[in-house]
């Protein structure tokens, strides 16, 4: 049975031996030495310090994933983006073989890339590069190197990243279960995540703040409340293990009222539950990504997506402007792609960050009310299943579809819930599946959909759903 309970130091260190034995580079990790290493890094390389600075100075920082197959290529990429892209955060994407713990295959890709001088992997094979490789990377730039990835079991990879000088990760249990694995059961994912968060807590308790992020699942096309409930559960796992600094990811869908409201609701309910469950001194940094199922192929429209992302960041008070490069729809971006995208984002951020615009509050009130009810309905059901423990009931919640995800890669997903846009571009529940919603909530969404049907003069269907998923890619909101 899973429980949301801090691993004892014994358990942690016992498991740690196994973890570090998974690949030869595991031997390079020494916790005390790593903590010393962090303490000697310039503070602006620490992700938490950097976020705190942004928060205090109303700054917005662009962030995106970037990964090459070798440390040398990655250094070239990050240095270029730091200089030519005026970057404040430098993303680091591990490759997908590493994410699946297939270090042998990653090794082959790595060696072939070293030999040919051409990237043969879709990211950096972090584990194969080892602590020394990551340190070389961290030392080659001035901004925090920010690992950005999901994996069912990131234990060894995160060990190496933290020992290498990185100070954030995203042990996001539901994201990683649903989106980053096809066959791993939830219980297993919970365990690897408890380990990683315990490790982050370990550093944090010893004066090296490490930030944990979560976004619940890839939210494109799904109404925000389900994602919010899931994010909160993921974050509760993190704080129980000793994490103190949270990067709370919010998802924009295009309707700014809904986007801003859902980010506020997300933060508010999170605080309520942290409070209720007794977690103190938690620092939160909101981030936003305009989450699309399909990014625009056409470069012009992809700048418009960055426009919306930046505007959302401004309106919700995010520190992180989590964007995709203009090459997103096509392939792994080149350094020029990233730099151009970042320059645009930087100028937009500079132009907008201190401006006095906001959302029309009146329209937002009802939306906020309904969303709060939705989130709490889900969370309370999960807590009920777990007798007050947010994780103990999670497996049952997933099984019964109280927590659901229609676009999960994992087979263990009810996959009943479906979203569709209303006439203002907000995402509504087309199908609430087994979400524990009251009639009031269900009717609210039905009404919004009916409104759209009335406006467009025909019923919505599965095709509407697909066209909604692709609208923004083609330069339309709906």
């Amino acid at each position, binding site marked *: 049975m899973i429980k949301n309970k801090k691993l004892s130091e014994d358990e942690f260190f016992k498991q740690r031996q196994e973890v570090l034995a998974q690949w030869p580079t595991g031997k390079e990790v020494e916790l005390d030495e790593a903590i010393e290493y962090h303490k000697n890094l310039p503070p602006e390389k620490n992700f938490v310090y950097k976020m705190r600075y942004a928060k205090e100075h109303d700054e917005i920082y662009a962030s995106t994933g970037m990964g090459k197959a070798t440390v040398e290529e990655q250094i070239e990429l990050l240095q270029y983006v730091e200089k030519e892209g005026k970057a404040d955060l430098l993303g680091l994407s591990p490759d997908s073989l590493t994410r699946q713990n297939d270090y042998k295959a990653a090794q082959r890709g790595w060696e072939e890339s070293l030999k040919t001088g051409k990237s043969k992997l*879709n990211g950096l094979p972090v584990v194969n590069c080892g602590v020394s490789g990551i340190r070389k990377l961290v030392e080659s730039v001035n901004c925090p190197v920010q690992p950005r990835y999901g994996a069912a079991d990131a234990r060894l990879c995160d060990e190496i990243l933290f020992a290498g000088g990185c100070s954030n990760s995203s042990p996001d249990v539901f994201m990683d279960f649903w989106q980053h694995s096809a066959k791993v059961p939830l219980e297993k994912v919970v365990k690897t995540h408890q380990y990683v968060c315990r490790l982050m807590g370990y550093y944090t308790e010893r004066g090296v703040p490490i930030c944990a992020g979560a976004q619940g699942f890839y939210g494109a096309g799904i109404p925000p409340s389900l994602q919010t409930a899931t994010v909160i559960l993921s974050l509760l796992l993190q704080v129980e293990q000793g994490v103190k600094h949270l990067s709370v990811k919010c998802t924009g869908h295009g309707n700014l009222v809904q986007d801003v409201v859902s980010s506020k609701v997300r933060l508010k309910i999170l605080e309520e539950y942290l409070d209720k469950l007794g977690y103190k001194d938690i620092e939160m940094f909101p981030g936003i990504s305009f989450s699309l199922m399909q990014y625009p192929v056409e470069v012009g429209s992809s700048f418009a997506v960055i426009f919306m992302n930046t505007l959302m960041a401004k309106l919700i008070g995010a520190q992180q402007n989590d964007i995709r490069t203009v090459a997103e*729809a096509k392939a792994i971006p080149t350094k020029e792609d990233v730099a151009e995208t970042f320059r645009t984002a930087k100028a937009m951020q500079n132009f907008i960050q201190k401006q006095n615009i906001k959302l029309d509050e009146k329209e937002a009130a009802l939306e906020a009310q309904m969303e709060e009810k939705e989130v709490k309905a889900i969370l309370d059901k999960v807590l009920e299943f777990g007798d007050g423990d947010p994780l103990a009931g999670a497996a049952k919640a997933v099984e019964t579809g109280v927590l659901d995800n229609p676009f999960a890669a*994992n087979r263990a997903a009810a996959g009943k819930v479906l979203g569709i846009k209303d006439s203002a571009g907000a995402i509504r529940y087309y199908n609430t599946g087994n979400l524990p919603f009251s009639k009031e909530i269900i009717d609210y969404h039905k009404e919004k959909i009916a409104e759209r049907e009335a406006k467009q003069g025909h019923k919505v269907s599965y095709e509407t759903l697909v066209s909604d998923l692709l609208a923004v890619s083609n330069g339309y909101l709906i």
Partner: protein
Amino acid sequence: MGADNNIKGTVVTGVIGEDVHIVGIRIIEQALNDNGFKVSSMGAQVSQEEFINAALETNADAIFISSFSGHAEILVRSFRDKCTEAGLNDIILYIGGSLLLREEQWEEVEKKFKDLGFNRVYPPGTSPTRAIEDLKKDILLRREKGD
């Protein structure tokens, strides 16, 4: 476009390798269903062997492989041979997605995967309708040949 609307068949679908990008193939599956095809959906992270076994079990006309990791070239190496070895003679093989790490000329990408034994190759953003039209034609052709 000329293809008989009564042509139906069985298709095994899935995302190959360590890849989790499931959405594209889900949409294709839905469209296949809507068009009366039998779909044997394998989901994400499917190995070559799993594809072949499912095709044997369902006596499939076609296998639809989706791949977005950028590792497709390595992941489907010798897949056609293995199909033939397993007795899946002339099974229709389609592949689609974001196949390579760097954007290359589409003609080259297509050629690469045709040389690897695929009947048809689709770029990201392919509409389901197009794939289904093609499939109907190919199934007809295959059956005529089989006759």
